[in-house]
Every structure is written in C-alpha cells, then in structure tokens.
C-alpha cells in the first residue's frame, strides 16, 4: 500500500515504530502533488489551458525543502529512540491564511503577495511540534471571502478533485481538495461561516469547526474576529480527532483561546451512540433567501437527495441505539446569513484597514503625491473585488447613523440564534440533545463560474453552517452519500460548547456503520 493511502493515525504509528520512514511518506506525498496538482496559484496567471482544467491546483507555495528537513528530523529521532509526537511523519497542508515563519503568507491576496511572515501561527507551530510534516500553503478565497475558492488572486484557483469542472467549495478549498486528492493527509483550515465544513462536504472529506476559543487564532490573518475558528480537515474522524488534540488549548498569545482542558479525543472514539439523543430540525431542511429581483423572501425545500442523506444518517444512528428526536425547532436559522452579512462585514472592514502599503505587503508602484493618494492606489490595486465589497458594507452598516439599525440589531439576532441551540441542548429542557444532525450544504458542488460574482447567492451556500459560527458551538461535516451527479453529499453534526468529543464519537460510529455502503466505494476523478 502506498504510504499516502494510509490514514494519518496509521502513518504516525508506523513511523514511530520504525516500520515506515517520514521521508518515504513525504516522497509519496510529493509524487501525488506532482501528478495531480498542476500549476501552483500565481498572480497574473494567463488563460487556463485544458491541462489546467484537469488539475487540482490546491497549492500556492510548496515548501518541499522545509518538509524534507522536518521529515529527516523525525526519522533521526526515531532512529535515536527519542520520543516523537502523535503526528510523526504525517504530511500536512496549511491554508494560506496562517503565518508560517520564513514562508510567504499571502491570504490569497495581491496585497500580501510579497509578505513573508516573521512568526508562526500557534496552531501550525503545535502541529509541527507534534511531528507533522508541513508541505506548504494551500489556496483559498481571497482573505477567506467566499464559498468557492474562486476569488483567490492566485490562479488557477483550486478545483474539485471529484470533478475538476466543479468548485471545491470554500474558503478552505485548497485544504479539502489537497486531502481529497491524496496530496496531504491532514490540512489546517479556518471556518468563519462554514469555510471548513462546506468545502469538506463538497470534496467528500471530514471537516471540523471547533468551538470558538478551542484553537488559538494567533497567526491567523483575521477576517471576522468573533467568528473565525481554525480546524482540521481529514480523511476520517479519527484523524480529525488526532489533529485537534495536537493543536487545541489555551495560548498566552490569544486572549480568546479558552482555558478549557483538552480531553484525549482518541479516547472518545469507539464508545458508540447507544442512548444518545440526536435531533433533526425541519428548519434545516429548507433554505430561505431573498429573490434577487423583488427582495421578497423565497423558501425552498432542500433537494431530495440531500434530505435523504441526512435522514439515512439518522436511521443508521437509530439502529446503533441512538434516540432520534424529530421536529426540534430552530426558528432563527433563516436569520443566520442576514446577521452574518452585517457582523462579518463590520469585523472584516475593521481588520482590513491595517493594509495600507506602509508596514508590510504591497505598495502601489505608480506615482503618488502624498500619503492619502498612496493609500488609495495601494488598496485599489492590492485588494480584489470581494474584500472591497466587504469593507464597503462593513463601513456602511457600522456608520454612526446606521449602527443601531443594522449592527446592534444583528448582534441581538445572534443572541436568538444562540438561544435556539441553548434550548435544544439544555440538560433540563424539552429536547436534551447530545447533537443536532443536519445537511451541511443546500447543494452539491456547483460548476466553476456558475455562482461566482453573485455575492448574495454565494453567501447562501453557508446557510446551514453559519448558525454554529454565530453560536460559537462546534460542528463537523462528514461524507454522507453520493448524489446522482456523482458528487459527495455532506451531513453535519453540531454539539454544545467544547463537546467536540461528542462529534467525534457520533461521527466515528456513523462512519464505521456505513463503511460497506455502496456510495463509500466511489472515488474522486483524480484518484481513479
């Protein structure tokens, strides 16, 4: 078996035991990258070729030399009989929104294209310290602003390994595509409205948004500071649990990283779901969005295949002894996106004012007469349209005369979204759920260019994932089936604050119970 066909857990076990070297694993990963990835994302890339359209393009910056040094260091430790970490020799890709010392850290934006980070993000530092081999930086939507990865300034943007005419989802599209295509065993992504879970669903892998505060944001280039969560992308639940355990926990560099003990997540696996209460909500079986012409609200049932995959997951868990609680009311779900349009934009605008062509990053190359003109030209040339749109919206809805109407109201609606979950999970409440089961996305992966440019429709791809970000609770997306278009369908579980263990427990039970189902035999196009 080629090393890249192993799980991260198995790989670390074999490397620790000296049965497999970290270098052999790395060589296997680099071979896969050479075979399937194609041109790395580049500024001012010309027209795409037919070959480009058939490749994955997960990477912006491959740091092979650094990876070789890390693999050699792991192998030397094993040979010397020294302790190596739980991720020994496991190839990892990192979304290019995290700083890694001495490595370009671009946020997929022209404005940071020349920025080489002088420090390493805590999550990356912990994963490397656990023995992971950092392959390099993978592509994303510019500053994470999107749900398809198409808005990257570094083209070709990432394509879906199941069908390269489709988007991988986003914004962690490079992360999920690199894991799906067998280029990395694990990837570090971020989730602000669904940016790990939605592309995980589109690419048929496991993606976890941990509880807000579970993983440090130090070294994460900020978008929505009250919503951003670093989290794992993996091929299976155990690998995701292994990765979270290696990077979670308080951090003196991030005052929002919570001082909550990190359990042994691997110990939560294999416990089964007997007696657990798993909820289903009709509010997650539809989406509500404004008609682009009239602004009138349109309510649409989800496609039958998406609903069926979720109900199938419920049946599987029921057979394993879980109690399925139907008709759990989550009445504020539909307000998740409207509230997000306000809150995330205000936070984005605030965070993006720092890019000014003075301290680091891009400065205009054209003439300017004074500081103000330099700012204007630098920001006009350095930011793409999506960051500009977010900055303008954030400034408008937080302006003194509108803030009460928009921003304050959105923050109060956020309380209501949180209260839906509080009621569903309350130990003394009517529902007493351990987890809520929902579809991850309203559709399977859409065609490249089909939605891009329509910022409203694109945002609604996150309607079923964004409530967890508002509420701060953890959520996981798991492969749950294959649709008639041959593309993966994701199912999502959400749990109370810091109950990632529950998600791993339920997720692994579902995974193991469905291991022989036909849809599990389907393989991504680039893996056939």
């Amino acid at each position, binding site marked *: 078996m080629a090393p890249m066909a192993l799980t991260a857990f198995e790989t670390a076990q074999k490397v620790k035991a000296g049965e497999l070297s970290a270098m052999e694993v790395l060589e296997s990963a680099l071979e896969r990258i050479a075979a399937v990835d194609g041109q790395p994302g580049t500024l001012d890339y010309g027209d795409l070729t037919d070959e480009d359209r058939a490749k994955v393009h997960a990477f912006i910056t491959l740091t092979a030399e650094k990876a070789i040094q890390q693999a050699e260091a792991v192998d030397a430790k094993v040979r010397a009989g020294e302790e190596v970490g739980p991720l020994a020799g496991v190839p990892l890709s990192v979304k290019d929104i995290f700083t890694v010392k001495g490595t370009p850290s671009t946020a997929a934006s022209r404005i940071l294209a020349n*920025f080489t980070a*002088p420090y390493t993000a805590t999550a990356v530092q912990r994963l490397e310290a656990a023995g992971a081999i950092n392959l390099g930086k993978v592509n994303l939507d510019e500053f994470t602003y999107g749900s398809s990865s198409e808005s990257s300034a570094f083209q070709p943007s990432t394509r879906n390994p199941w069908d390269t005419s489709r988007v991988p989802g986003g914004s962690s599209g490079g992360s999920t595509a690199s894991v799906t295509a067998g280029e990395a065993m694990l990837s570090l992504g971020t989730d602000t409205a669904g940016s790990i879970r939605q592309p995980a669903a589109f690419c048929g892998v496991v993606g976890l948004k941990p*509880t*807000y505060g579970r993983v440090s944001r130090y070294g994460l280039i900020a978008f929505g500071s*009250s919503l951003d969560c670093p989290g794992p992308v993996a091929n299976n639940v155990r690998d995701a649990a292994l990765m979270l355990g290696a990077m979670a926990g308080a*951090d*003196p560099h991030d*005052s*929002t990283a*919570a*001082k909550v003990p990190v359990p042994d997540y691997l110990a939560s696996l294999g416990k089964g779901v007997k007696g657990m209460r798993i909820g289903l909500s009709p509010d997650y079986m539809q989406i*509500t969005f*404004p008609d682009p012409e009239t*602004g009138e*609200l349109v309510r649409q049932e989800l496609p039958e295949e998406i609903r069926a995959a979720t109900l199938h997951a419920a049946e599987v868990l029921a057979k394993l002894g879980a109690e399925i609680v139907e008709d759990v009311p989550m009445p504020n779900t*539909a*307000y998740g996106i*409207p509230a997000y349009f*306000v809150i995330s934009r205000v936070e984005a605008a605030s965070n993006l004012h720092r890019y*000014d062509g*003075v*301290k*680091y*990053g891009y*400065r205009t190359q054209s003439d300017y*007469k*004074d*500081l*103000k*003109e*330099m700012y*204007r*030209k630098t*920001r*006009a040339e350095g*930011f793409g*349209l999506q960051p*500009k*749109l977010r*900055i*303008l919206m954030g*400034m408008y*809805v937080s302006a003194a005369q509108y803030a009460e109407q*928009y921003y304050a*109201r*959105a*923050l*109060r*609606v*956020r*309380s*209501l979204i*949180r209260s839906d979950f509080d009621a569903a999970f309350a130990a003394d409440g009517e529902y007493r759920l351990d987890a809520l089961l929902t579809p991850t996305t309203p559709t399977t992966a859409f065609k490249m260019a089909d939605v891009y440019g329509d*910022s*409203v429709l694109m*945002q609604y791809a996150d309607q079923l994932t964004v409530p967890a*970000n508002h*509420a*701060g*609770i953890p959520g996981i997306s798991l492969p749950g089936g294959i649709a008639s278009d041959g593309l993966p369908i994701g199912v999502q579980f959400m749990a109370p604050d810091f109950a990632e263990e529950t998600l791993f427990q339920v997720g692994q039970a579902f995974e193991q119970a469905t291991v022989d189902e036909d849809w599990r035999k389907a393989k991504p196009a680039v893996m056939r």
Partner: protein
Amino acid sequence: MSDEINPELFEHLVNLAAFAFDPEEAEYLRRELNNQLKAVHQLENVPLAEDVPLASHGVTYTAETRTGLRADEWEPCENPDDILSQAPQVENRYIIVPDIPHTKLD
C-alpha cells in the same frame, strides 16, 4: 424599489475606505451592496424582545475559561530586522511614508 446606496453615498463610502474604482467596478460593487442589503432587511422581521442582549461572542467566557491579558511587560523583539524588512520603504531603520496632507482646522 430605489437603491439604498445611491451613487453619491457609494462615492462617500469609497472615499472613507480609501479606494478608487473604474465605473464598471463601481457599478458591480454598488449593485452587490444593494442586493446584500435586501437580505439584511430580513432582520427587521425578527421580533426582538427588550431584554435580548447584544452577543459579541457566541460562547460566553467565564472567570475559569478566560485566559486573561498578559502582564504589560516589555520584552525585546527577537527579530526586528525581519519585521522592518517587510516594509516597502525603510531608511536608517525608520519606516518611510509619503508626505502627509495637512488640513488646517478652524
């Protein structure tokens, strides 16, 4: 329905944000802003009781879970030149900016 963000208001926001656009970009951005605001107006339909608080975070921090602030102590930066080397214009270890326009206040 008239646009909430008309061309004049859009121009004002563009100035505040220190941007510049060609007409095509400006039209796209203004249209998207107005479309997004149509979605945002759904929030007006939400019945909000007087006592619903503003949530700056979903998860509440407690005395036990809050990391707290570090002590305000001076620590030397390990690699100031790595940081200075990122600046577009540096002279004698000072970051250089163009002339700053002055506005005389009354």
